């Protein structure tokens, strides 16, 4: 039994093996990119929106609303980042319904890469909004003693992001595979439906957690330093 799609090699390009993770990641990326390019290709203000464009607008506005409920301050770049994360994870989890598709999020490499990007994005967003010194000061936030714990929590949050997504998606696949050998007709379908629900919730949680981490790093100076405004 395979614990991750890393081990299945689909084809080789010039001697470099392309495994299922890389292949299906590119499939998901191509699907998202090509679809949104085709929909927004002829975007003009005077043309009434087609149903595809309305669908995209509903999705983007839904993500925007969710982010605005969680984060304070400007959310435009946050929308680009967290929305992309959400769309990628959700699409790769939802394509589970396609036979033969192995979700790339069922591989620890993909989820580690996503979590690493969150780990890099948190200081980037923090530095752009507060400046380098202002961001580094947040590590000393309650007092100087908390410095190692803040650094540890930064890493443990990345590890838990990666393992949570990987474990949930991989467990769905493994349980479906085990049930397929035990009760092959009906129960795997039920578990796959449950896997769809779990995948959607996990995508939502991944994006929301990234939003929360970033917005806590970029919290506006008004709320973080109230003593300057009181005198």
């Amino acid at each position, binding site marked *: 039994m395979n614990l991750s799609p890393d081990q299945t090699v689909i084809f080789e390009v010039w001697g470099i093996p392309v495994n299922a993770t890389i292949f299906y990641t590119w499939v998901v990326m191509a699907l998202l990119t090509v679809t949104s390019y085709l929909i927004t290709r002829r975007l003009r203000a005077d043309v009434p929106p087609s149903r595809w464009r309305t669908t995209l607008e509903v999705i983007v506005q839904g993500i925007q609303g969710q982010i605005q409920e969680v984060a304070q301050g400007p959310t435009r770049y946050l929308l680009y980042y967290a929305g992309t994360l959400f769309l990628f994870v959700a699409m790769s989890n939802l394509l589970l319904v396609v036979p033969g598709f192995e979700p790339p999020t069922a591989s620890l490499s993909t989820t580690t890469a996503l979590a690493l990007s969150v780990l890099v994005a948190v200081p980037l967003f923090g530095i752009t909004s507060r400046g380098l010194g202002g961001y580094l000061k947040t590590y000393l936030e309650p007092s100087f003693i908390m410095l190692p714990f803040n650094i540890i929590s930064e890493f443990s949050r990345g590890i838990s992001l990666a*393992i*949570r997504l990987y*474990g*949930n998606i991989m*467990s769905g696949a493994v349980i479906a595979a085990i049930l397929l050998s035990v009760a092959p007709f009906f129960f795997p379908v039920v578990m796959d439906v449950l896997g769809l629900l779990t995948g959607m*919730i996990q995508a939502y*949680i991944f994006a929301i957690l990234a939003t929360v981490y970033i917005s806590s790093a970029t919290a506006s100076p008004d709320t973080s330093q109230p003593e300057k405004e009181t005198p």
Partner: protein
Amino acid sequence: MTDLGIIAAISIFTAGLTVSFGAIGPALGEGRAAATALGAIAQQPDASSTISRTLFVSLAMIESTAIYCFVVAMILIFANPFWTAAVAAAQATGS
């Protein structure tokens, strides 16, 4: 009992133990979180959207501890590094 037998027995036993003990805590925690959220929704039906969103996020975060245990159990059964090392050692000595 050979080395392989000992490793297999202990791995399987520990995998079962990991999942069972790892499921107890998150199960209690999730039940408590869901019960509290239901009580809160019954008291304030207007805030049900916010409460259920927070509930979903916290349920998934609680559940992730159980998922960690599941991952460890899966590694113990299907991708045990000691098992592969012992198999390699046995092949090296046997041939």
